[in-house]
């Protein structure tokens, strides 16, 4: 096949972390076994390029060589979502651009308009701190959830009117369940 140009196999992907959307481009590097990965985010920061290859893969562990440095990570992927642990931090990555704008922390949406405050963890509702129709300021507590023996005050993400509570005192909620609406 001498003289015939090899066609680079370029793969493009989109991922979402929290509110950030990432566009990825992967192509084989000239050096055999290595990939070139270009990562661009939609928040205006300069794009990043990595030259990487996989050294080892065992269970959830992946060892890569990235720009000459060893990166030893843990990873769990199910085709829709990828959880990556690196240097003590965990990244929750949605495959595709259809992330539901739920922040990576699972906390709340930052969009304009009505906001559903969601539970960030499973627990029991122990107090509703306002009456429907009351004004709440950003950062003011709106609801108390008990989990792991601690009472956690959930705060309003923005100022507005507390439209209604979607959970009652004593009820158990799961992570992601909407708790109340603030407009």
């Amino acid at each position, binding site marked *: 096949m001498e003289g015939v140009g090899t066609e680079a196999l370029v793969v493009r992907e989109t991922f979402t972390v929290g509110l950030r959307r990432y566009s990825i481009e*992967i192509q084989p590097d000239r050096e055999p076994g290595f990939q070139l990965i270009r990562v661009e985010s939609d928040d205006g920061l300069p794009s990043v390029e990595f030259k990487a290859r996989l050294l080892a893969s065992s269970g959830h562990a992946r060892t890569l060589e990235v720009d000459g440095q060893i990166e030893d990570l843990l990873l769990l992927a199910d085709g829709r979502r990828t959880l990556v642990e690196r240097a003590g*931090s965990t990244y929750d990555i949605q495959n595709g651009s259809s992330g539901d704008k739920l922040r990576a922390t699972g906390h709340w949406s930052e969009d304009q308009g009505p906001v559903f405050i969601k539970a960030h963890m499973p627990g029991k509702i122990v107090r509703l701190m306002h009456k429907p129709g009351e004004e709440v300021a950003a950062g003011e507590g709106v609801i108390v959830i008990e989990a792991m023996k601690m009472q956690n005050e959930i705060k309003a993400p923005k100022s507005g009117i507390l439209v209604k509570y979607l959970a009652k005192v004593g009820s158990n909620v799961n992570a992601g369940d909407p708790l109340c609406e603030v407009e």
Partner: protein
Amino acid sequence: MFRRILVANRGEIAVRLVRACRDLGVSPVAVYSTADREALHVRLADRAFHIGDSAATDSYLKIDRLIDAARKGGCDAIHPGYGFLAENAEFAGACDGAGLVFIGPGPEAMELMGNKVAARRAVSRVGVPTVPGSEQPVESTDQALDAARRIGFPVLVKASAGGGGKGMRVVDGESALAEALSIASAEAASAFADPAVYLEKYLERPRHIEVQVLGDAHNNLVHLGERECSIQRRHQKLVEECPSPLVDARLRAELGEAALAVARAAGYRNAGTVEFLVDSAGGGETPRYYFLEMNTRLQVEHPVTELVTGLDLACWQIRIAAGERLSFDQADVEWRGSAIECRVYAEDPNLGFLPSPGPICGLIEPSGPGVRNDSGVYEGFVIPVEYDPLISKTIAHGRDRLEAISRLHRAFGEYRILGVKTTIPLFLRLLVHPAFREGRLHTGFLAEHALTESPDQGDRQGEALAVAVAALEELNGRGTAADARNSVRRNRSAWKESARRHWL
């Protein structure tokens, strides 16, 4: 020595106690709630008994079920660990009534020190200074207001039966007092089955320094030096060390004498901890210290003292309860090097320490020279929502404080947990922080140095790399780029191949 000990607890401390039993040749018997059927402490025990539903009030706080399990398990003693019923005199009494040795202090010492208000009075009597506060539990908002005005804001609302930072709130001014009383009281009721709270003067930027004591039933009582536990969040300890970078030999002797006076006043036997707040605001002058409370149990942070003194506190608790004498006296206690413990919690340190229960999908634990990891989990375990979110305590011991810090930092570089958020990223920042390395600690340290802020720009590079790895993984899975696919296949199949060749 006992034949079988019921470990009436869960999580890392239950694992710690199972190990202590093994070291003494005693058979460890575990208990578990429904949520803990698969827990590590069950796996490591000789026998295990189910004691009720997942809520602690239905299981680990059920005195009758614990006594029943001890009987069924053929135990002759019960170790309560920390938390739950560890400082509950009724439980100690029930053990006694059932002919079981409660591994802890006598009931009088427990009752005295369990009531924070009475304890403060008793301690004052033997000449140890206490933090100004309400002499009684406050029974109404008005009563609390009166006391707070007398003491002066800011004040601390504290659970009378409490410990471990639960049922505790700082109040800056009168308007916030009612709310804080209500929350603290509810937490106290839920955590300790006693809603009583009292007030204390809130010291600005104090250091939390405590002294470990150990007393047997033959009037031998020694102190094992101090631990500094100033790095806290939500008034709960996060990082503890021995010795304290503030304490010199003279202050150690002084604090030790004060702690022994307190323990003596309580007629104390068992391992116990006398906690002090130390006001180090003044520059050159000798720091002032105030008695805070005495914990009549093994502390979470006991390992740093174990490493520095070379004494196994859990084993000594058991030996003492079995009637043995201390085999050493105060002059034999020696401190070697420095040890630091970081509590790895399933909490998000970048989001106000929000609990993050859930499955440990992947786990690599640190090891090597000077590193000890007292863990309560394993890969595949699901951290239950019902209990304290402590995953493990990572402890490093070094020839000096800087060697301990280096080793701890190295350990957190190796420690990988996939599935829940943890406090590890915070520790990686803390351990390289100049103020921490210089030992300039106080209980507001994390806030002062903004160590719990959201990830900075530096982490964006990490996020981009994580996304790149996710993309590579998906690529490998789908197999669209031949090179990548082959490279991964080779790796994976080498392992399967090899397994097959050797075994299947």
